[in-house]
């Protein structure tokens, strides 16, 4: 399944990049959201998959009696999800403000700061 | 016996869910589609959760399954109401086979006021009537 998901993640990345390369700011944001989702999933999958064994210690036991899914990447992905959520909320609002000030959705009109 | 019951619950639930999905594809307009999603899906969830409760047979699981059902039943109609209302008011087209619409005449798109049609009751005593 890892291999299948690897391909899926590749598609997610491709989609994200394609959206990032559009001229519309809104599409840019959608690209960013896709991108961070893809990255989070990548960590999860690359660390290895386990079916039906959440990393929870049963009541009354000191450790799971069977092999459980690796909790560490899960914690990492959780942190990464939260972080990207914060960052993306910011980005989304930024785009809104930028549009309000510049009144264009076309990134090609946003060149003043480089020239 | 229990296993059979569980299996049939799960399968029926699944079937209702599928019907909902099918309905969403097939039904002709927004409001009719919403009938499918709100009801069939709620019923599907209820049945599946009953199956789940039956499968584990523990009080905690029953409680959880019940929780799921209650929560879905609490939220699904609200969501349906909100989106259905919004969709209706911004002018989503109704299916051509729609018989009547008693709402439209009572809605003022400028002020967004929704009258009951009973306001004149005090004076004239007309019942609300609409003709789609």
């Amino acid at each position, binding site marked *: 399944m890892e291999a*299948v998901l690897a391909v899926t993640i590749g598609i997610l990345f491709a*989609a994200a990049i394609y959206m*990032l390369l559009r001229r519309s700011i809104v599409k840019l944001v959608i690209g960013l959201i*896709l991108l961070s989702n893809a990255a989070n999933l990548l960590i999860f999958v*690359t660390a290895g998959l*386990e079916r039906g064994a959440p990393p929870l210690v049963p009541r009354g036991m000191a450790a799971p009696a069977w092999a459980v899914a690796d909790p560490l990447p*899960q914690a990492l*992905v959780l*942190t990464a999800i939260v972080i990207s959520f914060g960052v993306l909320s910011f980005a989304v*609002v930024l785009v809104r403000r930028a549009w309000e000030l510049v009144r264009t959705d076309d990134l090609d009109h946003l060149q003043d700061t480089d020239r | 016996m229990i296993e059979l019951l569980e299996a049939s619950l799960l399968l029926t639930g699944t079937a209702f869910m599928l019907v909902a999905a099918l309905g969403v594809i097939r039904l002709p307009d927004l409001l009719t589609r919403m009938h499918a999603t709100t009801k069939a899906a709620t019923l599907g969830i209820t049945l599946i959760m009953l199956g789940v409760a039956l499968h584990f047979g523990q009080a905690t699981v029953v409680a959880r399954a019940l929780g799921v059902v209650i929560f879905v039943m609490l939220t699904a109609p609200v969501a349906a109401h909100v989106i259905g209302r919004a969709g209706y008011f911004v002018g989503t087209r109704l299916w051509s086979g729609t018989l009547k619409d008693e709402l439209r005449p009572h809605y003022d798109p400028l002020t967004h006021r929704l009258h009951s049609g009973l306001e004149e009751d005090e004076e004239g005593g007309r019942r609300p009537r609409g003709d789609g």
Partner: protein
Amino acid sequence: MQLAVLAGFVVAGLTPWLHRVAGARTPLLLALLPAAIVGWLLQHWSLLAGGGALMLEQAWVPALDITLTFRLDGLAWLFACLIAAIGVLVLVYTGGYLRGHPDLPRFLAVLMAFMMSMLGLVLADNLVALFVFWELTSLTSYLLIGFRHTDPLARQAALQGLLVTAGGGLALLVGFVLLAEAGGSWSLAELASRGEAIRGHVLYLPLLVAILIGAFTKSAQFPFHFWLPNAMVAPTPVSAYLHSATMVKAGIYLLARLHPALSGTSAWTLGLALIGGVTLLLGAVMALRQTNLKLMLAYSTVMALGTMTLLLGIGTRAALAACLVFLLAHAFYKGALFLVAGILDVMTGTLDVTAMGGLRRLLPWTALTAAVAALSLAGLPPMLGFVAKEALFGALLEAGGTGWVAVVAVTLAAGLTLSVAAIVAIRPFLGPLRDPPRRPRGTPPALLVGPALLAALSLLTGVAPGLFDELVTVTLAGLGASGEALHLVPWHGVGGPLALSLAGLVLGVAVFLRWESVRARLVDVLAPLVARGPEVWHSTLGWRTLQLAHWQTRILQNGHLRTYLVTILMAWLGLVGHALLVRHGSLSWPGSAWQAHELVVAALMAAGALTACMVRSRLAAVAALGSMGFSIALTFVLFSAPDLAITQLLVETLTVVLLALVLFRLPHFTVLSTPLQRWRDLGVAALVGALITTLMLAVLGGERLPSVSHYMVANGQPLGHGHNLVNVILVDFRALDTLGEVFVLALAAVGVYAMLCFRAEEAGHG
């Protein structure tokens, strides 16, 4: 001595305050410092006369082999004396020249700093220390040349001088580093004794070239000479000081200093002689082309510098001796002449020789001074200039061989210089009185004392050149050309040198008499050459660089976010892809079981993502994103990550809420790019996706080390007191991550709040 130099810098910094206290007496007070240094130097001469050298050890950055050690030997003494002594005169002169000028304090400060830098330069024993002072002279001279800073020409000339000398300085730095590597030491004294090793080193040629570039730029050798005449926009004291005894001589000093270590190879001889020869001819010819006094003097300085370089290149003992004498003579007469030019400038308001005449009646003392100094410049007896020229011709004749080319060149140059001297000394003063822009009255003594003293020195030492016997002998010994004591005499008698001098005299007189027409001819003939000369190379180079800079910046920083992205992505693809191809071998498909519904979920994920890309409606894209997020959550459920699934669901839901709130105000999707662009982007995107997949497969299919999480699984409950291992990791094992994470959230919220409400507040006011 280090203390004296450092004190000089401190004094320089304090000059503005000093000026507030001492007012017009400030220059005189400041002159006390160089005067004291001269005294100190004179006091130590006896030590050097015995053949010794004074080492003043001082550490700086020992780990980098950088010391502030000063070494006083003959050469250093000679230069230090010139710098300090002429410094005194220039300071005194400045007091008169810039009297009441609002920028006088700053000028004095920089002049002092410059003086101290020069002193440091000639005294430093360490290559890096020398370089430090070298660059400081470039810098301070930049400030001096740009003294009239509101004048664009002054700024431009200052910039040109700085770029040329600092650019050369960088070459010099390379040369020094290589030299230190080749010679195994950063000490000049030690390097002087390791000439053999250095000349045999594989780095010799590069280091020589680098050092020569440094020296040539500083000493205004062809093809770097042009900055010097342009620098004449500086106030006259600056010109007098920088171009007679100090700044431009730094290159000569350096060549002399490194003579023991580097000379003796054909590369050295050829390089110096060739460049020196070209420069001296060029200086002489160009001088005649001018009508501006200072410019004529400037080009004659170029000529003199070329001469000294030529002599250093020849490198025989006689040549070195001639070089030293020439150096002294030049310092005296050129200092005097520049200062005279300054007087004329102040008194008449012009520097154009063709506009002056008959001034001897109004400025008799100035005229006398000019005449004496010009005699020395012309190389006529009984001046030191004559002694120097005799020595010069003597050395050239003695060298023999192909030296005859040099002989012809030098004779030619001597003749032209003589006519320059005549023009400078005769035209303004003799003949009928012309009306200059301003009518001069008597010269203030503060202005006259400097040039008069220098002119007098030219005469005195010309009559009695023996005064320098000991100095030259000792210095020559320091340059590795020791031998019996040298005797300088005012008159050599008739011989080859005198004949050449006479030839030069004839030529000079002839040119002087027909100067107007010669000049006109020269202007015509040289115009196309000048138009293609080094100065044009320099400006073209600068312009081209600027053009290149414009071009590359327009290409790279073009304001299009997507080209930035494509560039970065292509870089990433190129680097990582290359590494994967070159450094990583085969890929193996990580085989593991899958189930049908898992495949469907994966497909839904991809479909959601692709839908988000393809739909025409913004909100449909958001909804598609939502479905993708839910599919991801489902994946987390399927593969045993309930916490992640919950988090993903909630985050996805709230993201959708947020987007719906925000997108409301934003415009609809429009198709802005051309099909070609879309295909290109699709290509880039596909490549990125493919590479990511490949990377994942490579990691998944290769050798993998066990995770450290076994510890957390085993100890999460016993030590972390929690059954949810993910949560135990989040709040205990890796709580620091979580701490950072909540700060990210908080920051994002503050940022969003500020972004949105800052405006609201403004709107409230406006």
